[in-house]
């Protein structure tokens, strides 16, 4: 398995985060003041119906978007103080993304997709080996030369996980990672995430499915841009290695 980063202080801290979108003349309050923090090594599931603000929250945590007001500290740094390049560097090194629709780059091999974050990190040495190791970790070493269109959904999502892990980020953000997968592939992906969490990696999972949230150790439930519930739970699904 890929070794996790050494243990550090609480990674994610949100304080009264508000996000307002403007759609034409209408202001949409996606988040109305959300506060919580996530410590190193947690497995957090953010739940809510569509329109509850969970995707907006995920975008803010992933530094793809900035809060309208309130503070978001990532490793103690207020992301609103960072410029575009610094945000890109954070997305590259501190956060790994797994999307519902896989979001692999078409016409590029699995290996090249996994290698991509390392290219943007400016690495030149051992790049291919590291990408290969990440693919091996998700059990797809034999599919390295295949293009996304030649892989099944589950395989594509595993490539996406390998890509998210290749820079060894502290946080893995998964936005409905099983939304487009059959139940067997879903279980595979979730087992992979649990393993990564067991190795100490922080995982934030966005989902609206209870049986997927059941893999998490803590559930934050959102409704209309506010936190409805924040509770710690026992992992209710047993994962056999």
């Amino acid at each position, binding site marked *: 398995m890929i070794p996790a980063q050494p243990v550090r202080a609480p990674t994610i801290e949100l304080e009264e985060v508000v996000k307002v979108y403007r759609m034409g003349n209408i202001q949409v309050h996606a988040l109305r003041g959300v506060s919580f923090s996530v410590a190193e090594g947690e497995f957090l599931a953010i739940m809510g119906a569509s329109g509850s603000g969970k995707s907006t929250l995920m*975008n803010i945590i*992933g530094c*793809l*978007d900035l809060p309208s007001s309130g503070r978001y500290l990532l490793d103690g740094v207020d992301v609103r103080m960072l410029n575009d390049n610094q945000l*890109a560097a954070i997305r590259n090194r501190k956060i790994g*993304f797994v*999307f519902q629709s896989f979001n*692999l*780059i078409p016409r590029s091999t699995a290996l090249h997709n996994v290698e991509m974050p390392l290219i*943007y990190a400016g690495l030149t040495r051992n790049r291919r080996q590291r990408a290969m190791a990440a693919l091996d970790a998700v059990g797809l070493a034999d599919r390295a030369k295949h293009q996304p269109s030649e892989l099944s959904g589950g395989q594509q999502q595993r490539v996406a996980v390998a890509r998210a892990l290749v820079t060894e980020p502290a946080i893995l953000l998964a936005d409905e990672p099983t939304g487009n997968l059959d139940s067997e592939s879903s279980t595979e992906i979730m087992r992979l995430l649990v393993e990564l969490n067991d190795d100490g990696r922080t995982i934030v999972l966005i989902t609206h499915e209870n049986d997927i949230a059941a893999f998490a150790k803590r559930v934050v439930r959102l409704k209309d841009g506010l936190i409805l519930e924040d509770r710690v739970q026992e992992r209710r699904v047993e994962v056999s290695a």
Partner: protein
Amino acid sequence: MKLVEALALAISGLSANRLRSALTMLGILIGVAAVIVLVAVGNGTSVQVQKQVQSLGANIITIFPSNQRVGGVSQGFGTGQTLTQADVDALNDKSQAPDIVTAIPIAQANGIMVYQSQNWFAQTSGSTPDFPQVRNYDFSAGAMFTTGDVNNSAKVVVIGQTVVDNLFSGDFNSAIGQSIKINRQSFRVVGTFASKGSSGLGNQDNVAVVPITAAWAYLSGGRGRNIGQIVVQATDASTVSAAQSEATQVLLNRHNIGDPSQADFTTQSQQDIQNTLGQITGILTLVLGAIAAISLVVGGIGIMNIMLVTVTERTREIGIRKAIGARRSDILLQFLIESMFLSGFGGILGIVVGAGLSTYLATIASRISTSFPPPVVSIPSVLLAFGVSVGIGLFFGIYPANRAAILKPIEALRYE
């Protein structure tokens, strides 16, 4: 991100849409090829004109009488009659003009030539035996008339190849000794000039030369001992300007003129002609190049167009790249390199096609038309065309690439 990786990325992006990339490159290819071919045609014209000026005679200076003035009104170029045989003799005096090899007088007398049932119109000059040497003519048959012929106003003539073609069906040997009529006067052919080839400066083969005394006596229509111009040959190329000032001084002294600006004659060296014609052909080349450059700009707009389409099509991919850590500059570089690759590669192909077409045109130039100058590819125009095409990729690529670079990651990711 390293340039090599950006280049690899660009190539894989372009090869995903091969036909589209090829058509876009075609626009630049045509532009670059057009610039190279048209500039080559302009250059070829310039080279040919220079050659023709040289073929008029090496290191020569032509002296014309100034415009005649009647009551302070200039009467037009060359209307004066201020040059005399004595001027020619003075210019041939080595003690006064050491850098002049020889000076010949020329009296123009255009006349209808008739041989048996054939007739032809040619420029007929009255001159002296040094005419072929000064004007760079060789003989295909016979020889020049002699000083004795000049002294005796002998009715002899030397004719050029075009005259031979039209009066003697091209057979110069048979022309020798024959009598032809010029303005109803019989002249005996003593020599024929070898062909100089055609020329944009008048056909130098359509000439006839008679002793100047004979021209005065039989062809001038009673205008007397008029000298239309004096042609002076300098010892070599480096002494042309010295010879020019010597000739000016000799004539100023002889005509008792103190102020050179009041001179009743003008001198023109071959260099002057070359400079003037060089300017004209230079402008011609520039105009041709500018016309071709328009197609290059159109090609550039084609690149911009296709890059905008590409950026829109790949909005989601841009979002993915940004999510996994691509900076603005990475995205900018990726699309800029794509557009520069299109234009640069199109430019290289354009150079190959343009240079090839120019070379091919040069080989078949004489078959198209005798007056079509063989194109000469100029290396600076090739380098310029390539540089400009890459520059066009940069210029027209910046806007689409920047549009890609400033896309917000979440909006790009949401794009369907």
